[in-house]
C-alpha cells in the first residue's frame, strides 16, 4: 500500500485544481467500481453496487492546501494568497510547485522581529530575472502546492498532503478489499474541502445518501508541549465525536464503534476542538443525513511534512471495509 500512498501524496492538487489527482484516482479505482462520474465542482463520484437498498456515501477529499499567485513584480518575484489554512511560520524556505512543474522557494522581506512574519511579507522566487521571464512560466491566479517527496520511516510515514490523500488511499484500498457491500456505496473523492467543505456539500445533494461518513486526518496531542488532545499516533484510526463542523450523529458513532469492536480493530475516540470535515456539510444536506467521521491521527497538519502511523492506516482500511459490509440500522 505504501506505493499507492507515495503516488497519491506526491500528486499535485490544491483546492480548485484537483484535475491531476482525480485522473490518478480514476485509474486506480476503475477495476473495482461499477460507475464513475465527475460533477460540476469536480468531485469524482464512484458507485460500487451492493446488496442492500441503502446508500452509503464515503467522502475523502482530494484537494490539498496551496498558494495562489496574485502579483508578479518587475523583478520576477511572485506574491500570493493562501488557498486553505496556511501558517507563515511553516512556509519560509519551503519549496512549492505549480501544475506545469515550475518550482519556487518561499522567501521573506526584511523583518524587524520574527513575530512580524505574516503571509503578506512572503513571496515566491521561481528563479526569474524579470516580470516577463516569470510570466512566461506562471500566470496570475495559478496555484502552487507544497513540493516535498514521500518519506517512508518504516512504521511512520511523512509527506505533504497526507491531509487528506491518506484518506484517498484508504478509500481506494477499501474499495479493492470489500467483498460484500451492504449498501450501494458512493465513494466520493471530494474537491475544495480546505476552503469550506464545498465539494462534499453538492455531492451529498446529488446522492442523498442514507448514511454519510467522511474519512479525514485529525491532529494529535502526543508531541512535546503540544496542546491537549486525547489522540495519539499508533493507537488506531479514530471515531469522531465532534469538531467545529458537526456533532457526529450518535447512532453513527455507536455503529462505527460497534463495527471496530466486533472485528477487533483498535480505535480511539476523537474530540477535535477546531477544524471541520466534509461530514459537516453532508449532515446538513436536504432534510438531514446521519453522518460520522473516521480520522487518521496526523502530526504537523498543514505543513509540508505531515506524519501518520502505518498501522493506523492499515487499521483504517480494515475499519472502513467492515463498515461497507455492515448494515447501519440507524
Amino acid at each position, binding site marked *: 500500500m505504501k506505493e499507492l500512498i507515495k503516488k497519491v501524496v506526491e500528486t499535485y492538487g490544491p*483546492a*480548485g*485544481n484537483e484535475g491531476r489527482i482525480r485522473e490518478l484516482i480514476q485509474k486506480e479505482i476503475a477495476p473495482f467500481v461499477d460507475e464513475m462520474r465527475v*460533477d*460540476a*465542482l469536480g*468531485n469524482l463520484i464512484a458507485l460500487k453496487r451492493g446488496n442492500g437498498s441503502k446508500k452509503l456515501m464515503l467522502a475523502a477529499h482530494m484537494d490539498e492546501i496551496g498558494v*495562489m499567485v*496574485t*502579483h508578479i*513584480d518587475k523583478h520576477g518575484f511572485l*506574491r500570493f*494568497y493562501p*488557498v486553505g489554512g496556511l501558517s507563515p511560520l511553516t512556509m519560509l524556505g519551503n519549496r512549492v510547485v505549480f501544475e506545469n512543474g515550475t518550482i519556487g522557494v518561499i522567501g521573506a522581506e526584511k523583518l524587524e522581529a520574527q513575530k512580524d512574519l505574516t503571509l*503578506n511579507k512572503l513571496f515566491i522566487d521561481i528563479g526569474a530575472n524579470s516580470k516577463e521571464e516569470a510570466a512566461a512560466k506562471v500566470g*496570475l*491566479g495559478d496555484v502552487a502546492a507544497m513540493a516535498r517527496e514521500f518519506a517512508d520511516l518504516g512504521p511512520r510515514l511523512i509527506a505533504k498532503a497526507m491531509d487528506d490523500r491518506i484518506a484517498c488511499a484508504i478509500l481506494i484500498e477499501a474499495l479493492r478489499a470489500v467483498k460484500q457491500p451492504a449498501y450501494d456505496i458512493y465513494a466520493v473523492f471530494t474537491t*475544495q474541502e480546505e*476552503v*469550506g467543505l*464545498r*465539494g462534499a*456539500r*453538492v*455531492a451529498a*445533494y*446529488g446522492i442523498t445518501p442514507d448514511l454519510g461518513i467522511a474519512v479525514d486526518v485529525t491532529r494529535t496531542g502526543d508531541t512535546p508541549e503540544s496542546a491537549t488532545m486525547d489522540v495519539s499516533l499508533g493507537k488506531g484510526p479514530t471515531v469522531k465525536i465532534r469538531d467545529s463542523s458537526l456533532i457526529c450523529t450518535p447512532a453513527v458513532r455507536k455503529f462505527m464503534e460497534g463495527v471496530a469492536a466486533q472485528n477487533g480493530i483498535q480505535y480511539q475516540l476523537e474530540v477535535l476542538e477546531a477544524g471541520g470535515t466534509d461530514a459537516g456539510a453532508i449532515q446538513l444536506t436536504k432534510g438531514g443525513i446521519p453522518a460520522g467521521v473516521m480520522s487518521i491521527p496526523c502530526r504537523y497538519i498543514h505543513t509540508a511534512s505531515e506524519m501518520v502511523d502505518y498501522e493506523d492506516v492499515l487499521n483504517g482500511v480494515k475499519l472502513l471495509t467492515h463498515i461497507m459490509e455492515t448494515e447501519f440500522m440507524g
Partner: protein
Amino acid sequence: MLLKRLSEAFGPSGCEGDVRNVLLEELSPHVSEWRRDALGNLIAVKPHAKSPRVMLAAHMDECGLMVSSFDRSGLLRFRKVGGLDDRVLISKHVVIGPKKINGIIGAKAIHLQKPEERSQVIPLSGLYIDIGAKSKEDAEKLVKIGDYAVFATEFKPLSETVVSGKSFDNRAGCAILAEILKEDFAVDLFGAFTVQEEIGLRGAGVAAYGIDPDLAIVLEGTTCHDLPPSKEHGYCTTLGGGPAITVMDASVICDKGMIAELLRLAKEHNIPIQFKRSITGGSDGGRINQSREGVPVVVISVPCRYIHSPVSMLSLCDFNHTLHLVRLFLNSIAEGGFTI
C-alpha cells in the same frame, strides 16, 4: 442614465423595492416573463431552447442604516445594515423610511470635544440621526422604528469617463445586467437581481435553487484599491484597468474554464482585463456555486473606489468594457464556442 437612477434609488438590504421598481420600469419593454420569489429576488426570464441555462446575477441591495429607537429629544438611534465603516458616518445626509425624510448623522462640534475625544472615532452608540424634530412624539410622526436609512448622495460626473455616486456596489452590476437584458441572445437566460447580499449572500442562494442553472455569471462593483500608501502588490483592482475577474474569494473558487474563455475573448477583442487580487470578502458567487449539485461560477466586477461609504467612484470605460465582455461571453455560449 440608468446608472444614475439606480445609484440614487433607495435599497438597503431587505428593502430593495425602489430598485426593483426602477428595473421593472426600465426593462418592461424588453422582458416579458418575470419572477419574484419569497425573498424579493427579481428574476427576468428570457427563454431559449437548446442552450444551457445561464444565470446572470447582480445584487440590488446596498449598505444602510436602520432606526432602532428614539431619544426623548427626537433624535434617532440606529444600527448598521451591512459592513459600513463607522468613521465615514459622521455629518452625512441620509434619507429615512418610506416617506424619504431628510436627516443628518450628527456629532458634537469640535469646539465642544474634550482633547481625548478628538483622537478617537466616535462609536456607533455616540451617533444619532437628527431629523429636526422637537420631541420624540414629533419624530414618531415621520419615522418608525425599523425604518431604513441610506446616504443621500447625488450621482455626479467627475470627468468625461469617471463618475461618482452612492452604492456602485452593486448598482453598477445591476446596470450592466439591465443593459444585457435589453438585448437578445440565443441563450436560455435568467437575469437575477438579488437581495440581501450585504448581510450574508442571502438572496442569491434561493434564487439559484429556483433557477437551477448550468452556469452562472455574477456581476459586481468591487473594491478598487490602487492608491498610496499601498504597494503595488497590495492593490486589489485598478480604476480604468478594465473588468476585474475573480479567481478566488472567501466564498468561491471560480470556474477555470469560464475564466479561460473570458481571457480569450478579452484578448481577441482588445478589452483590457485584470484579476481581482484580494480574496477577502465573499460574493453571491459562493452561494450560487454551492446550490444543489453545484454550479460553475465566474465573478466579473467593475472596479469601484470607496465602496461601503457615502460615495463611490467608477470609470465608465471599465463599465462599458465589462458590459461588452459579458455580451461576448453570452454570444460565445450561444454559438457553442463555450461549453461546460
